């Protein structure tokens, strides 16, 4: 299966035509699931991920509740049809690790001390996966938490930086991750100026690592603007429609 494939062409463009510092096209939506307290959907490249948030609600079973703060439960799960080869529905070791790091990426942003003995559930379903899904999942989870009205210090935003053919590249796709020399997902909380998720596999010199961190931060800030727009979008749209509809003043 591994043919020698060039990841960067003569013009410095990647397999999907992007420049090294370019993000894949991103589309986001909130409030699409009626039952959830909050929900969001993201498409980033060919990633399609949906997130639902339930809570804060009573901790069940009671013994997992904490006396001084809410418990966050997070499940990252890939649909069997989400990858090239069918993935078994049972949680894999990778999904278990990713559920943990995503929860830990979102925790610092949530005012969990406001809801002792309660629970916030975050359910992430990857409907289609194409590299960088944990980052897109974090970005969408922040939207779902905001949509649920859960108090946050800030939105959490995430993006990965990879190394392909010796060059650092933002937002690697699946093939760039598989054939590349490094992959580093980063989650950032802008108001706190802190990084809440940082992983890397591959090989980086000190200089490459520092540069990759900066590239990740810049990419995250671009996605952060999109997150804010998405949250406001629905309400601004309704406002626009209302203002365009003439209203007759009542008889009173």
């Amino acid at each position, binding site marked *: 299966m591994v043919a020698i494939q060039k990841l960067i062409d003569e013009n410095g463009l990647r397999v999907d035509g992007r420049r090294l510092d370019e993000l894949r096209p991103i589309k986001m939506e909130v409030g699409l699931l009626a039952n959830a307290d909050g929900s969001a959907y993201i498409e980033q490249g060919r990633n399609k991920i949906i997130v639902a948030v339930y809570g804060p609600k009573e901790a069940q079973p009671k013994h997992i509740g904490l006396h001084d703060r809410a418990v966050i439960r997070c499940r990252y799960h890939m649909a069997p049809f989400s990858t090239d080869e069918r993935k078994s529905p049972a949680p894999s070791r990778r999904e278990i690790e990713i559920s943990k790091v995503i929860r830990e990426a979102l925790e610092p942003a949530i005012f969990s001390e406001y809801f*002792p003995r309660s629970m916030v559930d975050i359910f992430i379903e990857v409907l289609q996966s194409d590299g960088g899904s944990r980052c897109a999942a974090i970005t969408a989870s922040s939207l779902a938490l*905001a949509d649920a009205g859960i108090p946050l*210090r*800030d*939105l959490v935003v995430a993006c990965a930086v990879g190394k392909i053919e010796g060059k650092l590249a933002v937002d690697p796709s699946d093939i760039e991750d598989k054939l590349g020399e490094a992959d580093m997902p980063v989650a950032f909380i802008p*108001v706190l100026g802190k990084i809440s998720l940082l992983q890397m596999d591959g090989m980086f010199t000190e200089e490459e690592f520092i540069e990759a961190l900066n590239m990740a931060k810049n990419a995250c800030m671009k996605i952060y603007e999109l997150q804010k727009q998405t949250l406001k979008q629905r309400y601004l749209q309704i406002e626009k429609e209302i203002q365009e509809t003439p209203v007759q003043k009542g008889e009173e």
Partner: protein
Amino acid sequence: MRMFERRQLVTPGDLLAEGDYIAGENTYKEGNRIYSQKLGLVDFDDKKVFVVPLRGRYIPKVGDIVVGQVTDVSLNGWSVDINSPYKAVLSVPDVTGKSFSPKLDSLTKILGVGEVVVGKITAFDRTRDPTLTIKGAGLGKVGDGLIVNLTPTKVPRLIGRKGSMINILKRETGCEIIVGQNGRILIRGRDSKKVELVVEAIRMIEEQAHISGLTDRIKNFLKTGKGD
């Protein structure tokens, strides 16, 4: 310095004000900067900055009237779901007027799982579940009616200044409307078409609470039977 104008839409993490301001509801202060915790409309009351959220569950407040549903019966009393992270507790003496109940069976007959009650929050702090009373005028078990949901932070819009909005609704439709602060509205009326009008009006409030001129639009809707 204020970063936004009154009633502008803000998101979590938005910087609302910098300087000598007080962090009101749904905001927090870091140094001398005040940030929003939620998606909602920012507002200012002199030096206080606060956000009215557009979404969220109900956080109980003592004195609030709430509409809830019984989820469990035990010898300690009833658990009532009030659309909050915490279930409300209705004690046995409050309902029966007696402090001791002989059998679980008769408790269920008095108030069973699934029954709807209108109650008042008598105590709440974050260390224990909120307590409810159904003793008092206008409180008690509910036999019939329709329950409609509304985001709790939009309930003030439904009530209106000095009850202006809710009174219009009651007058124009002739329905009995009990507004739970927890975002559960009980509607009772003989004419199902009138009940539908109330349901639709509440839906409009849910969708348009953040836009000014709502009272006029609701009035218009009730008179003409037409919506947005």
